[in-house]
Every structure is written in C-alpha cells, then in structure tokens.
C-alpha cells in the first residue's frame, strides 16, 4: 500500500517535471514563431555517407521547394542539419542540440540503424516526432509513439524475394550472409520468414566484409543441393560471391539483397552479374515502370529536380528523406507547430504515394510500407530488367 503511494507520488512528480520540461522547450519556439524549425541528422560524412549525403541534399532541396511555394501555412521552414558521421555518440549530441538548443518541432534522420537506435530514448522523452531514414526493423517494432521511418525494412525485401521464389517453385535455399549487422538482420529475416512461404533454408554460411574468396563456403552450399542461393550483403562481398558462383559453375539461380541494388554492383561483378535476381526500390528502374504506376511521375520529378540542382544521379536513399519531408509537410499543415498534433497527423497518414512506395501509417505500423515498395529485377545484358509478377 505504502509502496503504491510512493509510486503515485513519483508519477505525479514525473508528470510535473515533464510538463515543465515541455514548457521550457516550447516557449522559445513560440517566441521565434517566424519559422518552423525542422531538425535533420544525417551521416553525411563517414562510412555511411553514401546514405547520408543524398539524404541531406534532398532535405535541403525539399525545404527550398516548400519555402518557394510559400512555406507551411504561410510560415517559412528552416532546416537545422547536423552530421552524425555514422557514430551513435555524435548522433546523441546532435539530437540534444536539436531538442534543447534549436528547439525543433520535428526531426528527420538519422541515416543508419545504430545511430537511430541511439537517439530514440531521447526522442521519446522529449516527445518530438522523429522520421528515421534507416532500414532496421527494430526501429519501429515494437512501436514507439514518436518514432516513424520511411526506409523499407529487410522484412519487406525478404518477403518480396520469397514471393518470387514461391512463384518459381523454389523450395530449398542456401543462404550466405555478410558477417555484420546488415547480414545478421538479413539472415534472421530469411530464416524467420521461410516457413510462411513454404521454403526451407538448408544451409547457412557467412563471409567477412573484406573476404577475398568465398569458394569454400559456396562449395559447402553446392553440396547441400539447394534450388537457389540467397546472398545478403553490401559491396564488395556480394560481387565476390557472384564471381565465385560462376567460377564453381554452380547451376542454380543466385538472389541478392537490395543492399547491392546500384549500377556499381554490375560494374564490380561484371559478367558474373548476369541472371542475378534482386529486390530494389523503384527509383532504380523508373524508366521501366508502367505508365499506370502511381509512383512513376513522382520518381521522374524527384530525379529531374535532384539532377538539375546537384548535377549528380539520384539514389533511392535520398528518397527516404524526400518522403519524410513531404509527409512532415502534410502533418505540420494546420498543426500550428504543436508536436502532439504533428505526431497524430503523421500516424494517420494514409495512401501517401512517395519515392519509396505507398505509405499507410497506423497506430500499429510506423513504417507503413508493403512488399510492393520493392520490385524484383533481373540483371540481363549489364542492365536491370523488371521481373513479371
């Protein structure tokens, strides 16, 4: 009984503290009501800069476009962007600056799963909406009220691969995954979802991110007689796997992950890339999409805008920031900068068609995508060919 009273007292105190903290945070943003401040944390330099750099550029471009169109509800938007350099500690200091110094109304980013997971507790405590651009399933599962994400999860990539396999009558697969966080997550999804599609994983192998040769692992896989091989990794490992599969004359189809969905992979693997099947975001194959595809127009516009502004090719990664910014734009409209209203509006976002796919957020889904966010492509003659569904 006594314990209960103390707990209740603590709760009341905590609540008071929270209200106070919230009011402390909010006062300056009301005072500086001339512009909506939106924070950005991206790994624009460091090992994950291939993700963070296009995301940062895209966010800057989008803010410019929104302001050129008159801002949100007549208010200008101001972006405050910090570089987390792929380092969770830097992401934490960036989020603290955004929350307490810059008093932003929402945050977009970070770019990778480790940097995102490092800051979610701060976000939940400060009650500011966050839209992450990272892929890890664990960011939005279990659901955290203030955390959303726009990147497709591995979960969906695996589902897309398995759907194709099911259609081709593939029953037994061997998997070879890279020994890092990306490969581990892929392996867990591949093994976890196999049963739902009537597929059996007969052999699991791994390779180091800088391995020069994977023939030993592939020989082992070959002797397990799978119907297909799935390789999960980011360059350059999967290209070595592709070359070794060809050298060993293993005569089963090779599937790769969305981690290698870039022209660089075809360049690295050369002839060995022929016939490889992989899931990818639609941006890689914009030109091949049917005219009726609802995303085609959006993709073409984003590609053209990005190319004219930065004079470099778009990547799907920048698209995560594109979708985050536009959905935030919609959510901030009519909210008057109230964070709870923005959060509620984000959560009720339905049928938003963006670069990455169609988003349908709900109280139980803060990623909002379906496996349709991926298309399956086959590499033919050094370029991508859409696989019929």
């Amino acid at each position, binding site marked *: 009984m006594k314990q209960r009273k103390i707990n209740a007292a603590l709760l009341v105190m905590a609540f008071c503290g929270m209200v106070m903290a919230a009011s402390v945070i909010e006062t300056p943003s009301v005072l500086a009501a001339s512009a909506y401040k939106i924070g950005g944390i991206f790994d624009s330099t460091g090992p994950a800069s291939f993700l963070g750099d296009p995301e940062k550029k895209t966010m800057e471009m989008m803010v410019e476009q929104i302001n050129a169109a008159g801002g949100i509800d007549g208010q200008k938007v101001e972006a405050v962007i910090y570089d987390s350099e792929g380092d969770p500690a830097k992401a934490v200091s960036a989020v603290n600056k955004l929350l307490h110094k810059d008093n932003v109304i929402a945050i977009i980013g970070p770019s990778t799963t480790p940097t995102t997971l490092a800051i979610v507790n701060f976000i939940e405590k400060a009650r500011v909406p966050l839209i992450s651009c990272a892929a890890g399933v664990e960011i939005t599962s279990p659901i955290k009220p203030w955390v959303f994400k726009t990147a497709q999860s591995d979960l969906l990539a695996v589902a897309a691969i398995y759907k194709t396999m099911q259609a081709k009558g593939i029953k037994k697969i061997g998997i070879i995954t890279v020994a890092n966080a990306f490969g581990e997550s892929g392996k867990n999804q591949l093994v976890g979802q196999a049963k739902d599609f009537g597929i059996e994983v007969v052999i699991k192998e*791994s390779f180091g991110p800088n391995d020069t*040769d994977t023939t*030993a692992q592939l020989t082992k896989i070959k002797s397990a007689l799978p119907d297909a091989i799935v390789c999960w990794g980011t*360059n*350059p490992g999967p290209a070595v796997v592709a070359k070794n599969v060809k050298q060993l004359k293993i005569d089963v189809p090779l599937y790769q992950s969305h981690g290698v969905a870039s022209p660089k992979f075809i360049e690295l693997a050369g002839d060995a890339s022929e016939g490889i099947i992989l899931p990818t975001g639609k941006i890689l194959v914009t030109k091949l999409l049917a005219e009726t595809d609802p995303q085609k127009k959006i993709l073409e516009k984003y590609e053209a805008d990005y190319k004219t502004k930065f004079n470099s090719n778009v990547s799907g990664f920048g698209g995560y920031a594109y979708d985050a910014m536009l959905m935030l734009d919609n959510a901030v409209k009519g909210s008057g900068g109230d964070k709870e209203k923005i959060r509620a509006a984000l959560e009720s976002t339905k049928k938003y068609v963006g670069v990455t796919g169609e988003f349908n957020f709900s109280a139980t889904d803060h990623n909002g995508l379906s496996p349709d966010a991926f298309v399956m492509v086959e590499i033919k003659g050094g370029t991508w060919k859409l696989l019929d569904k």
Partner: protein
Amino acid sequence: MQEIIQYLFSGVTTGSIYAVIAVGLSMLYSSTELINFSHGEFVMLGAMGIVTLWVHLSLPLPLAFILTVAGVSVIGMLFERFAIRTAKKHQPITLVIITVGASILFRGLAMILWGKDPFSVPSFSKHESIEIAGAALVPQSLFIVVAAFILAGAIHLFFKQTLTGKAMVACAVNKKAAWLSGIPSERIGVLAFIISTGTGAAAGIFIAPITMSSYDMGTMLGLKGFCAAMIGGLGSLWGAFAGGILLGVLESLGAGLISSGLKDAIAFILLLLILYICPAGLFSAKVAKRF
C-alpha cells in the same frame, strides 16, 4: 572428396597471397629487424595502382605492372627516408608504432584519392575455370601461385647469391660490424624497404582480379600476412612462405568443414597456439631474440 579438393584449391590460392605478403614482411625483418605493420597498405596501393593504370588509363598490362611496382617502391623508399630513418635512434617498438601510424595515413590518403567504392579488375587471361576431379580452378589462382614461387625464389637467390644480398643479411646480424667492414648500412636499409614494398605491390596486383580493390583491403591482408610470417618463423623466408600456404589451407578447410563464421578466428587461434607451443615459429632454425 570433391569438396575437399575444392577447399584445397581455394586454400592454396589465398595461402599464396598470404605467402607473398609474409615473405615481404619477413624479408624486411631479416634485414632491418623491423616489423612493418603498414605492409598491407602497400599491397592495397599495388592493387589500386593497377586499377588506375591498367583499368582506367588502359596502359598495356606489363607496363602498368612495372609502373605500379616502381611507384609503390618509391613510396616505400620515401617512407623509410622520412618516417623510419629520422626516428631510428629510438627503440624498435617506436618504429613499429610509426608503421602502425603510417598504415592509418596511407589508408586515409587512399580513401581521399580513390574514394570509398571498391573497384573490379578483370582477370589477366580470358580462360574459363578449369575443372579437376570435379573441383573448379580459376586461372588467376595459377598466376598467383606461380608469382608467389617466383617472388620467393628471386628473393632467396638475391640473399644467397649476390653480394648486396649477403651485405643485407650481414646488416641484420650486426649493423655495427657490417658498417665497420664497409657495408653502407643506411643504403642497405633503403634497399630492403624498396624490395619489401615492391613485393607487396606485386601481391596486390596479382590478387586484384580475384578480390575487389578498395582503400581498406590492406589491413586484414597485412594482419594475415603477419600471422603467416609468425607461424613460419619471422626472418625465415621459406618458413614465411610455408606459413602463408598453411594458413590459407587451414582457413579454407576450417570454413568448409567447421564454420565459415569462424574463418578469421581460426587464423588467429592458430597463431596463438603456435606461438605458445613453439615461440620461434614452425620453420625457424634460429632462436627468437630481441624485443
């Protein structure tokens, strides 16, 4: 059976790579008593050199090969002149730390120069992989094994047959005595660096087609080469060579028969075991000294 042969093939291939790297390390140690932890970075520079000269500038292969080896040797020479010699009054451990620092510097410069993306190099010959007893052998593997033997053989002859080579050995045994008998020990030191980094570059060139070349490929290769040199016995040329092949084969058999997740662990566990049982290495006649 067929699998075992395949494991052996891939083991000998990777083993030959380790062997060439180990030979370069060991050779430098036996003439200057210095372990160069940036050796892997010179392998990387060799691979990146061939990417630039052969793939991007499309020079003929032999010319690109010579230019790359020469260029990397010059870098090795400058490294000796400006980083090692200026600090040579200090303890050997200081010099070792300098080489560790240099490896970070080389990696950083390579990242700025070539970017973070890996590069692919085509095979030296267009032949299909050869099938022996059901196991596939890539022609590039043959190139690597042959190149490893030629390099090790050439260094062996150099030490045993030429006056300069013998002078180099003399410098290693006793620098002061060598100097007293008229051997220019400083020039010999530079030469040792040039040869060692040159073989490193050659290793990089030969492995580029079977692996991918990127700025961070050197670290692991350097470590494995060091492992191989220790297994064989530092300072022993053929010991380092055999250590490399042994390491490659055991790694490949370990990955195939036990678990691929343990591939790197096997190499390092092996190193610990061998250093515990026989601190001088498997093939070293000499007793381990110094340090």
